[in-house]
């Protein structure tokens, strides 16, 4: 029994407690990283910084990035006017004809940027929400943020005595829905369930209000408001897009900062607390990030459904179970959004299907396929 005492067992044998950090740096290759990881040691002033890189997660992220680049290039080339890859590349770098330049810089590039930013934001906030609620079905959409934004944007379009533009009002609507949900739930609650239930109620009310407004106006006005009810990348507001892009970058950095805590949050609260995680604070941060990113994304593209579910699910499927795939979710979400938008533009051209409809029509089966596939063994 005594042999098994942790103090008396030295796993790697050759080391003592003494030695300066310089010595340690020289022997850095001796430190064995855990299975499936690379250990990245960076000499820093005084001490050595060591990062663990999950190989499978890295490969998954690189794969998603590559797919996103390919699809991005495709969506620049394809459309009502097809450009050759060379022509698009020339136009992209300011060498093409005026017509090509206009197509790329004024139409397709902003649309691609909007697709990447909104898809990334929706999926990242979905991943955060699912982690904090420990529920793979939790998305910011089901807690009423989308519906709040839609109701306010539609109100603006049908002209209910407000002078703000729809994107700005969508943001106000998202904030209102969140504030209402928060107020009614009286905080996040211990597990976020209460918050979710309150959000479903708030969302239902806003959804009904939207329907009511659409039923009371003439068909042309209802038509103009339509994209705001399904989600579309057609009528992006450049200011909202800029704000979203900056926020997504900040959001990614902040969520990386709490990534280790989020990893532990997948255990029960008492286990997480026992490991020194400030559970409530971590959850509050994740919720704040999730809600703000969704609100900003909705103000750009409207309530695009399913991305917050498919993105994280795809990322979890490709990545290892060792961590919460934050970056992977954002990449997967961007990929889903860009490919859905591309499909929507091409399928019934010259008619354009709003991206929200494509994500729902194609996203549903894709989600089912991911869920029903037998789980792969982790290498």
């Amino acid at each position, binding site marked *: *029994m*005594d042999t*098994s*005492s*942790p*103090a*008396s*067992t*030295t*796993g*790697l044998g050759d*080391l003592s407690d003494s030695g300066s950090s310089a010595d*340690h740096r020289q022997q850095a290759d*001796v*430190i*064995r*990283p*855990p*299975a499936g*990881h690379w*250990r990245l040691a960076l000499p*820093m002033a005084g*001490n050595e*910084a*060591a*990062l*663990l890189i999950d190989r499978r997660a890295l490969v998954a992220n690189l794969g998603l990035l590559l797919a996103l680049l390919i699809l991005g290039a495709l969506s620049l080339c394809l459309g009502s006017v097809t450009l050759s890859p060379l022509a698009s590349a020339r136009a992209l770098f300011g060498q093409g004809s005026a017509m090509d330049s206009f197509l790329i810089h004024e139409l397709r590039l902003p649309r691609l940027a909007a697709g990447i930013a909104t898809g990334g934001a929706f999926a990242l906030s979905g991943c955060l929400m699912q982690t904090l609620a420990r529920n793979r079905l939790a998305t910011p959409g089901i807690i009423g943020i989308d519906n709040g934004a839609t109701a306010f944007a539609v109100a603006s379009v049908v002209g209910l005595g407000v002078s703000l533009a729809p994107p700005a009002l969508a943001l106000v609507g998202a904030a209102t829905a969140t504030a209402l949900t928060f107020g009614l739930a*009286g*905080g996040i*609650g*211990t597990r976020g369930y*209460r918050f979710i239930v309150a959000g479903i109620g708030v969302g239902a009310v806003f959804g009904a209000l939207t329907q009511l407004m659409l039923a009371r106006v003439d068909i042309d006005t209802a038509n103009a408001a339509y994209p705001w009810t399904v989600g579309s990348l057609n009528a992006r507001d450049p200011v909202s897009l800029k704000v979203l892009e900056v926020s997504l970058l900040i959001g990614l950095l902040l969520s990386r*900062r709490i990534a*280790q805590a989020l*990893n*532990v949050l*997948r*255990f*029960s609260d*008492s*286990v997480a*607390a*026992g*490991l*020194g*995680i*400030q559970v409530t604070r971590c959850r509050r941060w994740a919720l704040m990030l999730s809600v703000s990113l969704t609100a900003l994304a909705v103000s750009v593209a409207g309530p695009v459904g399913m991305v917050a579910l498919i993105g994280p699910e795809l990322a979890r499927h490709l990545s*290892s*179970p*060792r961590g919460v795939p934050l970056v992977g979710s954002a990449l997967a979400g961007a990929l889903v959004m860009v490919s859905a938008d591309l499909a929507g533009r091409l399928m019934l051209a010259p008619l354009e299907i709003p991206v929200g409809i494509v994500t729902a029509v194609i996203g549903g089966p894709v989600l089912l396929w991911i869920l029903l596939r037998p*789980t792969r063994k*982790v290498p």
Partner: protein
Amino acid sequence: MMPTHHPTSAPLSAHDLELGYGHGNAGRGKSQHSVIEGLNISLPAGQVTAIVGPNGCGKSTLLAGLARLHAPRRGAVHLDGQDIQHIPAKELARRLALLPQETHAPEGLTVAELIRFGRQPHQGFLQQWSREDARVVESALAAANLTALADRTLDAMSGGQRQRAWIAMAIAQQTPLLLLDEPTSALDLGHQLEVFELVRSLAAAGKTVVIVVHDLDSACRFADHLVAMQAGRIIAEGRPKDVVTTALLRELYGIDCTLLSDPVTGSPILANMRRAATPNADNGMQASSQACVSGA
């Protein structure tokens, strides 16, 4: 081994402790109910303390309070003389490890990966894997006799192995204090012994271990110090041999029995158990109805 009831160097102690649920939003009406009131306890250093008592007597609540999962309504818990409420979360996790009853791991996690989470309190954003981390995870695997199973996923293991993996995670926290909440309750006899022997080896390595146990025979055999709780109070504590009497068992569980002595270890054994036909049975009923309230 001296049975010291109030050791001067108790690493963890509670004074006039009052604990209860019902803060926050759950059940506003009955929020004032306290599970534990006016409790004093100090845990002998380097020994195994077992907390026993009927369902709903507050064992798990006490353990959670000692590990700061609940803030006390009154009184305080002291770790090495320091109020536990004033210790930063991460530092506390380097000084005290808790294995709660409700353990649930993300799908597909392997034993080694689980144990690595025990290093979390020692790691930082830029210190994700040190030589020490590698060494401690190896030795925690060895201590729990799981080295050969390191790459097995948790779902593919027996209950006893899984419980040892969880304890190994707590070991990897390298804390002088370990609090284990009913680590044996779902296990068969052989697997229970695996866990108890692991607990003894931890104490032999100088750690202070607190363990909530249901099986009194095992508690008597493997613990140095026994704490008997009833309705949120400690009604007896000391060496198992000195503490366990038929009167105590009647008060705790409402049972009558014959007490034998283990021919090898000398620890008390309960034989010929039967329900006592006394009003004490009502105490048991009350206690379990309190369990329902506090669990809600």
